C-alpha cells in the first residue's frame, strides 16, 4: 500500500508529478490552481529527483516550454485554469500537429472572459473538440477525486508517450481545492538520457552519427503530404478509443440515468442515493476519458433506461456527446448551474424529476 496523505487536489497533482518521473514543470500562477506551482517550489523536486521547476512569464511561454522539452523527449507538464488554458491553445495545437507528448491540467473556473475564480465545467468543448486551430484532439482525463488527480498524472504521462500526443487532465475548482485522503503511488525514477533516446527515437536529443537528424515541426507546405499527416493523426485518434474509460454506479437495475463527469459526478452520486431513497431507480454513468468519449457503454445503457439527465456546470456541452451516443433512443436533457455556481444534489434531483422522471 502506498503512502496515505490528506491533500488538496492541486497538491496531489504536484506531488504526483514528482513521483511520476516528470522532468520539467513550467507554469504560471492563476486561481484556482496556483497551489501546484507553490507546492513544487516549496518541495524542491530538483533536489529530490532532478526535476526542473520554472515559473514562466506567461501561459504562452509555459506551453511553449513544454513544446521544447517534450520535443526533446522529456516528461513535461504544466497546469493552469481556464483563461490561462485559452492562452495556451496556440502551443497545444502546434504540439498536436508536431506530435509532442506533454501533460496539461486545467483546473477549470467559470467564464467567459475573466469570469470568476469559482469552479465550473464550461471548458468541455475546448478540451474535447481540439481547442486551438486545426483538426486535432487531446486525450482528456476527468478526475472526480483527489485520488484521481494523483493517479491521472501517472496515467496521463503514459498516454502522452503511447500516442505522442498532448494529454489534458480536465479538473475543476472543486477537485483542485478540496482536501481528501489520497494514496500516493510509489515514485518512478526519471528516465536516463539513454532511456529517452530508446523510448523516443524521434526526439531532438542531438544528432549522433548513427542516425539522420530529427526534426520536430508542425509545418508541411505540401498539401498532399500534410493531408497524409492529418490522416495519420486521425488513425491515432481512432486508436485512442481502445483506452476509453468510464465508471458505472448503480446502473444494473437503473430505469433512469444521470451522466456526469468530474465534480458533477460526485454530486450526482449523492443524487442517486436521494432518488433511490424515494424509490426512483437511478444510476450514474461517469465518463472518465472525455476524449475518447466512452460512447459504446453509454449506448448500451441507453437501451435499458427511460430517460437520461446530463449534469454539468455549463450551459450544456457534455450533453451533445451524450445525445450523439444515445442516437435519440431515449430523451436526453441537460441540467447545470453556471458562472461558478455549483448545483446541490437536491437541485439535481429536482431537475431529474421535472425534466425526466415526471415526463417519461
Amino acid at each position: 500500500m502506498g503512502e496515505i496523505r490528506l491533500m488538496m487536489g492541486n497538491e496531489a497533482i504536484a506531488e504526483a508529478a514528482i513521483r511520476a518521473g516528470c522532468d520539467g514543470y513550467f507554469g504560471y500562477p492563476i486561481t484556482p490552481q496556483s497551489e501546484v506551482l507553490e507546492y513544487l517550489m516549496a518541495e524542491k523536486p530538483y533536489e529530490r529527483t532532478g526535476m526542473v521547476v520554472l515559473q514562466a512569464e506567461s501561459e504562452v511561454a509555459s506551453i511553449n516550454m513544454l513544446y521544447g522539452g517534450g520535443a526533446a523527449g522529456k516528461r513535461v507538464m504544466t497546469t493552469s485554469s481556464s483563461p490561462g488554458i485559452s492562452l495556451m491553445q496556440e502551443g497545444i495545437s502546434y504540439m498536436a500537429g508536431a506530435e509532442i507528448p506533454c501533460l496539461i491540467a486545467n483546473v477549470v473556473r467559470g467564464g467567459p472572459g475573466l469570469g470568476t475564480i469559482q469552479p465550473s465545467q464550461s471548458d468541455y468543448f475546448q478540451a474535447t473538440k481540439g481547442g486551438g486551430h486545426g483538426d486535432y484532439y487531446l486525450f482528456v482525463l476527468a478526475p472526480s477525486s483527489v485520488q484521481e488527480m494523483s493517479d491521472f498524472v501517472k496515467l496521463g504521462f503514459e498516454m502522452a508517450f503511447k500516442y505522442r500526443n498532448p494529454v489534458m487532465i480536465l479538473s475543476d475548482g472543486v477537485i483542485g481545492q478540496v482536501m481528501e485522503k489520497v494514496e500516493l503511488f510509489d515514485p518512478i525514477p526519471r528516465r536516463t538520457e539513454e532511456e529517452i533516446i530508446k523510448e523516443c527515437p524521434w526526439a531532438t536529443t542531438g544528432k549522433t552519427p548513427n542516425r539522420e537528424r530529427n526534426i520536430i515541426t508542425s509545418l508541411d507546405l505540401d498539401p498532399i503530404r500534410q493531408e497524409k499527416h492529418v490522416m495519420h493523426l486521425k488513425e491515432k485518434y481512432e486508436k485512442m478509443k481502445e483506452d476509453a474509460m468510464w465508471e458505472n454506479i448503480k446502473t444494473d437495475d437503473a430505469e433512469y440515468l444521470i451522466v456526469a463527469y468530474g465534480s458533477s459526478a460526485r454530486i450526482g452520486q449523492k443524487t442517486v442515493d436521494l432518488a433511490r431513497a424515494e424509490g426512483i431507480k437511478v444510476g450514474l454513468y461517469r465518463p472518465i476519458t472525455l476524449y475518447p468519449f466512452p460512447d459504446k457503454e453509454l449506448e448500451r445503457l441507453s437501451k435499458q433506461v427511460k430517460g437520461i439527465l446530463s449534469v454539468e456546470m455549463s450551459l450544456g456541452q457534455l450533453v451533445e456527446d451524450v445525445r450523439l451516443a444515445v442516437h435519440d433512443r431515449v430523451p436526453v436533457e441537460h441540467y447545470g448551474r453556471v458562472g461558478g455556481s455549483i448545483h446541490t444534489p437536491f437541485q439535481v434531483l429536482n431537475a431529474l424529476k421535472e425534466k425526466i422522471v415526471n415526463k417519461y
Partner: protein
Amino acid sequence: MDVKFESWKEIIKDENIVFKKTKVLTDNVLSYCPGCGHGVAHRLIAETIEEMGIQDQTIGIAPVGCSVLAYEFFDIDMQQAAHGRATALATAIKRLYPNKFVFTYQGDGDLAAIGGNETLHACNRGENIVVIFINNGIYGMTGGQMAPTTLDGMVTSTSPYGRDPQIMGHPIHMTELVAKLPGTYYVTRQSVHKPANVRKAKKAIRKAFENQQQNKGLSFIEIVSNCNSGWKMTPIEANKWMEENMFKVFPLGDIKVEGQIIKEL
C-alpha cells in the same frame, strides 16, 4: 572546353580543395532569395558547430518567417517553434539538457514583435543559450509588410506611404534593450554583407557558443541584414541602402561584453 564530368575528376581532389560546404549544412537547396543574408548567417553557425565538434550535442530552434525552414538546411536536430516562441522552447531544452548546445534563429517580426515578451524574459533570466537575431526591417516571408524594426519613413506593403512614427511607432532596438538586462552576457550587432563583416560575425558567433560552453549566460547576436525582394532593390542596391540607412539606426559593434555594457546606450 571539355566540360564533361569525367575531366573534372582530375581536378576535384582532396588536395586541390581550398573551400567547401561545411558538413553541418545539408545538401538541400536554400529557399532564400539570391542576395539575402540568411545563407551566410546559416553557414557561419554551421561552421562554428563543425569547428567546435558539437554537431551531436546541438539543438537548434527555427522561427516563423523566411527562415521557418531553417531545419531543412542544418544537419542537426532542430525544432520549429510557433511564431515568436523560440526562446521559450530553448529555455526548456537547455534547462532539461544543460550539457547540450541550444540556439534560436529568429527574424525581426518573430523576435521583436510577436515574441517580444519571450525574448525579454529569456534574456532577463539569463538562459544559457545563443540567440541569433536577423534584422532586415521587414516581414519577408509574408510579402514585405512593416516590421517592428522598419525604419522611419520606410515604405512597406503595410506602410505604403512610409512608416509614420506618430501613427506606427518607432523602430524598436531589441539589442540595446536586452543589453540592459542583467541576464545577458554578450550582446553584439553584426552584418554579413562584406567579407570583413562576415569574419567579424563569425567571431561573434563562435564567442557566443563558447560562452554557452562555459555556462556564462545568454549571448545575443543581431545581424543587420538585407531584404532585396522586400525592399524592392537589386542585391547590390540593397546592401548599399543597408549601409547608408540601416546602420545609422542600428550601428554595428559589440554592445555588451562579458556582462559589461561597453557602449553608451
